[in-house]
């Protein structure tokens, strides 16, 4: 029976003022009854607008139809045909601007909670499925994937399903890329990432950690080792700073460093050898998802006041609405239309404040967002002992510097066409290494597209 409620089934969550003191997952997930009730809001439209909004084109109405029947395993099988990491996507995709933004139910009321249903189905499968996926029949060809993040893992999974022997090379000691070093435990439990990776291994994907391509082995050496096609998904690179005075004071972190210490190195656990500053007052500069993650980590690490300092207004923030709402509920203080001009230090070169100016919105700029302009005489100092810069990254130079014939953009991103093909034959690329900092699902989409192109390339070469 169709459920004509205008509102989504709300996601059960940990209480804001409890959860901002722990690293356990914030969203608790639907129960079976809630999932079926929500699935019944789906009208099963014939023209399937939602599917067009998904970068990996999950057959959304089909899986939801199975949820309605209570056949959760079949629902999972439908999702996993298109998505290599369903439990991850159900948690971190910006559904409100993708599948859910196209949902007919959203015209009057809220769209179907597609993301929450995807998460439910993936979690149900993990809790109930017996045995690992079967290894597909091998086609005798080898492909290499550089970087075990969202784009690389997706590419590897798709190639493995086509029968390729895939080896993934990861620079860090753990596979997962941003899913393990960047996105915090409370938003994406690492056990879930680990499970998704185990599934890929069961498909025959081999993951070699502690290998830095461009240093330990080069792209050319990979070809010499018999890999017929190579996918570069090396991710975002060096953190950007604002080039304002005081950025090298003690207590100034890039979001990458702060999150890596916290998430990958588990600095929040008492037995971790990796230190992290325990700050009282923290300013996070930036308005993206990464800034929200850093701010919420700082709160959980014991900061009393955590500020998001962003030069435009809240409406212009690139972060997902849900992340902004969660941060607000957790008492993160938003200082929008504020721009830092200097970080102030004490006699020990430790951060003691951040000097900001107030901004107002002027005419729209080339990005279509209204350009912030400084308000005269609006300078003020925020007393903080830690500043986290979360204003983006520029691509890592290691691969482009060691791979001849690989063309890159002026800003360093690898140039790839719509199929992920780079200027080097047999070399494909996708994810943040190509686009600059973007989302997990866009990277996954790029990995998926590239896998298809790599398959075609290898076939045509062997034809």
């Amino acid at each position, binding site marked *: 029976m169709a459920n004509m409620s205008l509102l989504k089934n709300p996601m059960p969550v940990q209480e804001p003022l409890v959860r901002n003191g722990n690293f356990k997952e914030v969203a608790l997930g639907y129960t079976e009854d809630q999932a079926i009730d929500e699935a019944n809001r789906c009208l099963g439209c014939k023209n399937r607008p939602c599917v067009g909004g998904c970068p990996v084109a999950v057959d959304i109405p089909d899986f939801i139809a199975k949820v309605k029947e209570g056949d959760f395993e079949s629902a999972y099988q439908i999702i996993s045909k298109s998505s290599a990491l369903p439990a991850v996507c159900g948690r971190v995709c910006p559904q409100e601007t993708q599948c859910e933004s196209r949902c007919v139910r959203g015209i009057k009321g809220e769209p179907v909670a597609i993301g929450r249903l995807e998460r439910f189905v993936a979690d149900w499968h993990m809790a109930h499925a017996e045995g690992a996926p079967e290894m597909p029949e091998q086609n005798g060809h080898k492909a290499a994937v550089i970087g075990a993040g969202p784009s690389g893992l997706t590419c590897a999974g798709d190639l493995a399903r086509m029968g390729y022997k895939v080896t993934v090379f990861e620079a860090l000691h753990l596979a997962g890329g941003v899913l393990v*070093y960047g996105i915090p435990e409370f938003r994406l439990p690492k056990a879930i990432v680990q499970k998704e990776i185990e599934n890929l291994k069961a498909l025959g994907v081999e993951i070699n950690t502690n290998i830095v391509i461009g240093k330990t082995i080069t792209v050319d050496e990979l070809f010499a080792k018999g890999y017929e096609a190579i996918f570069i998904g090396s991710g975002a690179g060096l953190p950007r700073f604002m080039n304002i005075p005081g950025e090298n004071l003690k207590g100034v972190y890039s979001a990458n460093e702060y999150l890596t210490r916290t998430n990958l190195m588990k600095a929040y656990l008492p037995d971790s050898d990796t230190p992290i500053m325990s700050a009282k007052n923290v300013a996070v500069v930036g308005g993206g998802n990464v800034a929200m993650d850093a701010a919420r980590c700082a709160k959980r690490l014991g900061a009393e006041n955590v500020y998001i300092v962003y030069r435009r207004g809240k409406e212009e923030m690139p972060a997902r609405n849900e992340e902004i709402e969660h941060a607000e509920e957790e008492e993160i203080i938003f200082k929008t239309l504020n721009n830092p001009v200097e970080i102030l230090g004490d006699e020990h070169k430790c951060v003691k404040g951040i000097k900001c100016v107030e901004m107002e919105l002027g005419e729209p700029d080339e990005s279509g967002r209204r350009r912030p302009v400084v308000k005269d005489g609006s300078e003020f100092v925020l007393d903080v002992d830690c500043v986290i810069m979360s204003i983006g990254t520029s691509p890592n130079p290691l691969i482009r510097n060691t791979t001849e014939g690989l063309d890159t953009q002026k800003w360093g991103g690898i140039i790839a066409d719509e199929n992920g093909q780079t200027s080097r034959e047999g070399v494909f690329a996708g994810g943040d290494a190509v686009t600059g900092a973007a989302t997990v699902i866009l990277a996954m989409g790029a990995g998926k597209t590239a896998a298809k192109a790599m398959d075609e390339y290898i076939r045509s070469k062997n034809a």
Partner: protein
Amino acid sequence: MYKIVMKKILNPTVTMMKIDAADIAAKAEPGQFIILRVDEKGERIPLTVADFDREAGTVTIIFQIVGAATQKLNQKKEGEYICDFVGPLGVASHTEGLKKVAVVSGGVGCAIAYPIAKKLHLQGCEVHSVVGFRNKDLVILEDEFKGVSDKLKMMTDDGSYGEKGLVTNALKELIDSGEKYDEVIAIGPLIMMKFVCALTKEYGIKTVVSMNPIMIDGTGMCGGCRLTVGGQTKFACVDGPDFDGHQVDFDEAMERSNMYKDFERKRHEEICNLLNKEVN
């Protein structure tokens, strides 16, 4: 897992290990570094490559026991394993075209300077080594330096071995005696490198230093290793670790290097208690 194929105590606070890591040994060059993690809960720490054997597939590291991670590493015995070992990272030291070089190093920095001195020696460069330690008990690699240096000055702060004085005293003497160097390479504690650079700046001799800041990934991701060089922010992991010493902001680097001193101290004590040892 990476096997410790050899372990040797060089002095009470400095240990040498050879690690089985053929991929890295095949590529490593003097001046580059590796990142290691002793166990699952360990910190990622950078250590400069002290030597490598491409045939045996081993990489030599020499480390001073300063914090929790190096303390844990030192607990490991020959034949045991460490969990992660990745590299070679950073840009190799430039040695091309150098005909006469003074290699100035102090303390455990000698371990980093030695492979560079060796490479210079093998390419026919005249090498004058100035090596400094606090006292006689801490002297390491003397024979190794002897083997690759045309001149060797051993210095100790207290005069218990070699000449009494700082490495800068010996370097100044060499320069004043008329030695003309294409370049000075200085590797050691930040304060030592700072003063070597101050000296060579006076004489207008190009000086290269090897920086060893706090790092996590070592591949150009976290930005923790940033330094100010010539007024610009540089990342030691991908832009370095070698830099023009006359451009480096040493005071800032010194401040940044002690960011976690309190944490390290506490963790050190915890581990000592765990091992029922006295804190040294």
